[in-house]
């Protein structure tokens, strides 16, 4: 099976996902008590950078099946926005606020973008 040369979207996406999951685990391990936010912000920033790098690398790829990517990605995005929203809701229900809420929300946004990129890329690369 001959495959086109594509940027390592799955590998970078997995790393981005691992970092953002680590940020959420770190926050969850401290909440509802005081959380030093530095490590969570660092993990979030690294994960967001990897996500952005992934999208930029993909945007520069010639002949990529963008129609298929968008077709699959938008439905996956809808599903993962709902899932991230439910996780946000349970933290809001328990009075998470201030800095931890902002970092958590940003982490969930990165999560809700990273997974659809991974799904849509895996489908579109074989189109």
């Amino acid at each position, binding site marked *: *099976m001959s495959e086109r040369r594509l940027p390592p979207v799955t590998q970078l996406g997995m790393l981005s996902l691992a970092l953002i*999951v680590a940020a*959420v685990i770190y926050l969850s*391990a401290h909440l*509802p008590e005081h959380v030093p936010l530095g490590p969570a912000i660092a993990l979030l920033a690294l994960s967001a950078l990897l996500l952005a790098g992934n999208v930029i690398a993909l945007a520069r790829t010639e002949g990529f099946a963008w129609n298929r990517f968008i077709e699959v990605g938008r439905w996956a995005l809808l599903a993962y926005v709902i899932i991230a929203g439910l996780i946000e809701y*349970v933290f809001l229900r328990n009075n998470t606020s201030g800095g931890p809420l902002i970092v958590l929300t940003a982490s969930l946004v990165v999560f809700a973008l990273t997974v659809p990129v991974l*799904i849509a890329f*895996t489908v579109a690369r074989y189109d």
Partner: protein
Amino acid sequence: MTKPDFQIVPRAGLPIVAFVVLVLVVAIAVNDLWPLMFLHVVGGATWTIVDLFLGFVLGPIIGKMSIPARVEFTTRLMPKMVLIMPTAVTVTLAAGWQLATHLGYNLTTFHMHGWIVASYIVVGVMAVIALGLLEPANIAVLTEMKKPQPNPEVIEKLMKRFIYTAGATGLLQVATLVIMTQLGAFA
């Protein structure tokens, strides 16, 4: 080889998913012990059993099936997995967090807090494997099978990825069982 018709996301299952999500939202809002315990146990049991069964029982069976049988089985099983797994995982995690808050298990002063954090880590590793490899492979296999002329090599490669990652998450589920029974016995 005839290709069975199927929907990648079975629309008939969407109202059931919506109902389960609604029940979850209400249970979290009400914050009573029993509904939270029920949702966490049912969601967790579904997640664990499916992972173990798929990874260690169905996976090897699918691998030994003839190609037409494998295609027919896959087109019937995998669309259901698209709805069942994300729903089971979301219900387990959201109800589990609310349950832990209700019982005070997520406080750092809780005497088994280390076990709670261990469960977050195991779930985190499973989430990365499932969301990064398993779920994309599931959707990609189904999309490939929907094409007028599916590429058997692509399907084979993605199915292998699906089965191996299901096995890996199945192994991690054993760790979840150890942690949860520790909490059940000694909390």
